[in-house]
């Protein structure tokens, strides 16, 4: 079975130059892989480095040591050393990410925010908007909100916009940072359904879920992040 994501002996520390150069180790020797069609869940208490691992895989955090190998257009790319242009290309076509919080842009509608990743990949705007409407509908976001910028939405509404944005593409790897944290039971079920569909399509999912019910419903495997502890744990 295909393995589109391999993390090998990755280490990360923050050096706080404004605090006299204190070095805060986050994780060390992180090694795991995610196969196509499975959902691997990063487990461990807050501060264990789960989010940091996800951010390194997305290229949002730098990597001090090790390799993050991703199958990008049939070629193996090491994200730990890739140049910015390669990382952007990987993000556009290979690795999707549902962050914990939506970074809103003034004046862009919820529908526009959700459709953007498709438009960026060359999908016709009208078709992208149709797909976005379908997803927002499934996630029960009231239709009167679709044309509004999400800046004023509630936490749960913003999160559903964010989820729709992450799930709209068919990226072969999808990272999920607590996508259900501020959702009610009904919408949690919808997200569980969306994750199941991704698995059936052969997407490799790597996620963080604090909600035990969701975790049990979607996880094929728990990766215990505490085994990657690097001494003192970062905030």
């Amino acid at each position, binding site marked *: 079975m295909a393995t589109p994501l391999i993390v090998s002996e990755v280490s990360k520390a923050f050096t706080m130059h*404004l605090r006299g150069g204190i070095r805060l180790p986050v994780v060390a020797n992180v090694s795991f892989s995610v196969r196509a069609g499975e959902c691997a869940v990063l487990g461990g208490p807050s501060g264990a480095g789960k989010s940091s691992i996800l951010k390194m895989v997305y290229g*949002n955090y*730098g990597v001090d040591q090790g390799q993050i190998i991703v199958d990008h257009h049939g070629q193996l790319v090491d994200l730990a050393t890739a140049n*910015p242009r390669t990382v952007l290309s990987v993000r556009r076509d290979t690795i999707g990410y549902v962050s914990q919080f939506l970074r809103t842009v003034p004046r862009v509608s919820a529908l526009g925010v959700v459709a953007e990743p498709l438009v960026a990949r060359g999908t016709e705007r009208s078709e992208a908007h149709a797909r976005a409407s379908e997803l927002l509908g499934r996630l029960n976001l009231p239709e009167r909100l679709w044309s509004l910028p999400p800046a004023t939405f509630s936490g749960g509404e913003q999160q559903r916009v964010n989820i729709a944005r992450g799930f709209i593409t068919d990226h072969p790897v999808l990272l999920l940072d607590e996508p259900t944290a501020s959702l009610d039971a009904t919408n949690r079920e919808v997200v569980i359904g969306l994750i199941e569909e991704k698995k059936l399509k052969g997407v490799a999912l790597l996620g963080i879920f604090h909600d035990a019910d969701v975790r049990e419903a979607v996880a094929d495997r728990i990766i215990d992040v505490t085994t990657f502890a690097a001494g003192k744990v970062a905030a």
Partner: protein
Amino acid sequence: MTDEPLLRVTALSKYYGSRIGCEDISFDLWPGEVLAIVGESGSGKTTLLNCLSTRLLPTSGTASYRMRDGQWRDLYRMSEAERRFLMRTDWGFVHQNPADGLRMTVSAGANVGERLMAVGDRHYGNIRATAVDWLGRVEIDEARIDDEPRAFSGGMRQRLQIARNLVTGPRLVFMDEPTGGLDVSVQARLLDLLRGLVTDLGLAAIVVTHDLAVARLLSQRMMVMKDGHVVEAGLTDRVLDDPRAPYTQLLVSSILQV
């Protein structure tokens, strides 16, 4: 996606006497890519921008540009006439102060139309129609087409300057603090407009700003400058979320939260 950069900068340095303006700057810029250059006053970011846009000649180093016909040209070996032609067709330059980029005593329509005439358009009806279209795209009411920019607000002037620059379909736009000096609400509107235009037109842009939020919103890549040197460079969100150089950490930690 093309696999060749648009601009190649190698070991560019500019000295003012013995003082460093900027030193040993190298990077490639690709079509459709927005690069933010950030740093505080005196960091050399404007010197670098002026060298790149050939408004200033560097002391050493090279910058090559891929012309529309695919030929690479050394910017500092072109004739003055060639450079000027490049600047008014394939390039744009958005100044912080719109008065530096506009002609304040001719109408808004003429400010936009002038660049078209410079590239050889002579049909008055076409020029005016294009000007109307561009005023609409930068959200200026068509009814203001015959007004002089002197009668415009700061935000409108800046939007007019953008229209004037983009009307010839440039491939590369230089921007020097494009939102500096504007009210916050006006800034947000302008940023959103710029972001949309850059995406829709597939422009490459080099944006000098001291505002990290502007860099985050507009750019994919970022260079942080201090004392004439690049102290950190990379993907914009990586530099802002995981800053590594002491100076970048200082900049990021100095942002006020609202």
